[in-house]
């Protein structure tokens, strides 16, 4: 069900997507469009399938043994399960920031340069330029510009999370999937990341999972509410928070359960 207001075309779209872990259904018949250059927030109680849905957009679920899907997912109108589409290509176009920050035990520079290197970029000057641009993009440059050769593991939790964002930005994906990118951060770092999301949406299409209702209201244009593996309701963020169609949505966003 596409959002009702005048929205741009869908950059990504799932149609009747069902995903199982073994025989257990994690998400059931989810049809959701992710409009281009907009921020889509995915909300819902723990275990309702938000991460599962996000991971199926860049086929990270393929890595989980026993996971299987039905239905389809489209990127620019083309099925991502199309045989002709390379999954490595897909992941370069649809980047991901994980719930738990996971920098490599490498230097700050090498972390950000990683995606570029595996993509075949060798030119030193170009690498440096892209690393700087991505770190600036993730609002981390000023804090690390004098210590790019130091280990990424020496950064604080909030800095590590922004490093992971910078690392994802460096590949210049078209879509950025963020799984609770601010769940482990203090209010200042959280504010920085929200500001960042605002800036990024002019160039990227963003889907973000969050447990924080205020955050969803602040950063997103469209909100999708998941409950027990089903997509209950999706619409403009304004409407979901002020005038939801479903009782369950209202109960959740007003904090009556969840």
């Amino acid at each position: 069900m596409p959002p009702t207001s005048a929205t741009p075309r869908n950059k990504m779209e799932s149609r009747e997507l069902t995903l199982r872990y073994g025989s257990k259904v994690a998400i059931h018949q989810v049809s959701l469009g992710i409009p281009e250059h907009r921020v889509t927030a995915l909300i819902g109680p723990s275990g309702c399938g938000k991460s599962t849905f996000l991971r199926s957009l860049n086929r990270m679920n393929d890595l989980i043994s026993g996971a299987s899907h039905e239905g389809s997912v489209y990127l620019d109108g083309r099925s991502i399960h199309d045989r002709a589409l390379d999954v490595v290509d897909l992941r370069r176009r649809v980047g991901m920031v994980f719930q738990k920050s996971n920098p490599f035990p490498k230097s700050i520079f090498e972390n950000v340069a990683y995606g570029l290197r595996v993509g075949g970029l060798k030119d030193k000057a170009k690498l440096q330029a892209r690393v700087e641009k991505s770190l600036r993009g993730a609002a981390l440059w000023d804090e690390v510009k004098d210590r790019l050769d130091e280990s990424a593991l020496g950064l604080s939790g909030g800095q590590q999370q922004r490093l992971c964002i910078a690392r994802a930005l460096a590949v210049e994906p078209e879509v950025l999937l963020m799984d609770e990118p601010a769940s482990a951060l203090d209010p200042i770092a959280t504010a920085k990341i929200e500001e960042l999301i605002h800036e990024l949406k002019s160039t990227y299409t963003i889907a973000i999972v969050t447990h924080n209702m205020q955050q969803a209201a602040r950063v997103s244009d469209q909100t999708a509410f998941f409950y027990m593996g089903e997509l209950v309701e999706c619409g403009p963020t304004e409407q979901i928070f002020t005038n939801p169609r479903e009782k369950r949505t209202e109960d959740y966003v007003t904090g009556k359960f969840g």
Partner: protein
Amino acid sequence: MKHATRRVVGLSLVSLTGLAAFVIVAMLALILLDVVKGGASHLSWEFLTQAPTDGMMGGGIFPALFGTAALTLLMTVAVMPVGVLTAVYLHEYAPPNGRMARLVRVAVANLAGVPSIVFGLFGLGFFILFVGKGMDRALGYEELHWAQPGILWASLTLAVLTLPVVIVSTEEALRAVPLDHRTASLALGATQSQTLARVVLPGALPGILTGAVLAISRGAGEVAPILFTGAAYFLPDLPTSLNSQFMHLGYHTYVLATQSPDVEATRPLLYATVMVLLLLTFTLNLVAVLIRTRTRRKAASGH
């Protein structure tokens, strides 16, 4: 009453375990003390750099030292690639719990339980009489060239013996690489082999080096597997090619201890040889531990 019993049980457990630990330390100290006392006075630069003389009742141990080092080096060169590749296949590519992986694991576990003398016989039968003979025939040698004991066959036999150690510790090391790092790499558009080369193997390196250490210290001390496959009783010349025989510290120790016509005269030599063998093993271990801590620190600091 109950309380008292518990106390007694507790106390006796403490003393029992303490005693066991003490016995181990005491035994090591005794061995070292005895070896140093008997060998230190005879240990000299000449002893390390000269060949044995006077029917092995004089001179040094240089050929044995050199032979042991060359043998261990060749063994390491042979066992590491095979062992690491096998472990990578098992852990990264074979379907987990698939038939192939299970078969290899059972084979590895059983290989580890085979007595080392059997490896010696296997080396003789397989490498020398089968592979060596085949090579001689194929390469057109009239007399025995490859089909005789030599350092290549001895090192390959040792490589087979130490293979399980390398495979098991490499697999362990691969398992210890956090799943997070793999997923992060794949999510950035790296292929599986790029992930392996750039994230998984570097992360597993300290563990792989541990495997190398264990393999080396096991391989350097084994005598039985090289008895029939290349070790020489007495050979003052250094091995010059891969089919040369060689002297070996462990075998030399055995020869000095059991084959000497004058036990009193060879005793200091024997002690000094054992001391060198121990020093060599300790140094090897030390070097490996240093490499390991360095790579670990490097990995942690991220270079």
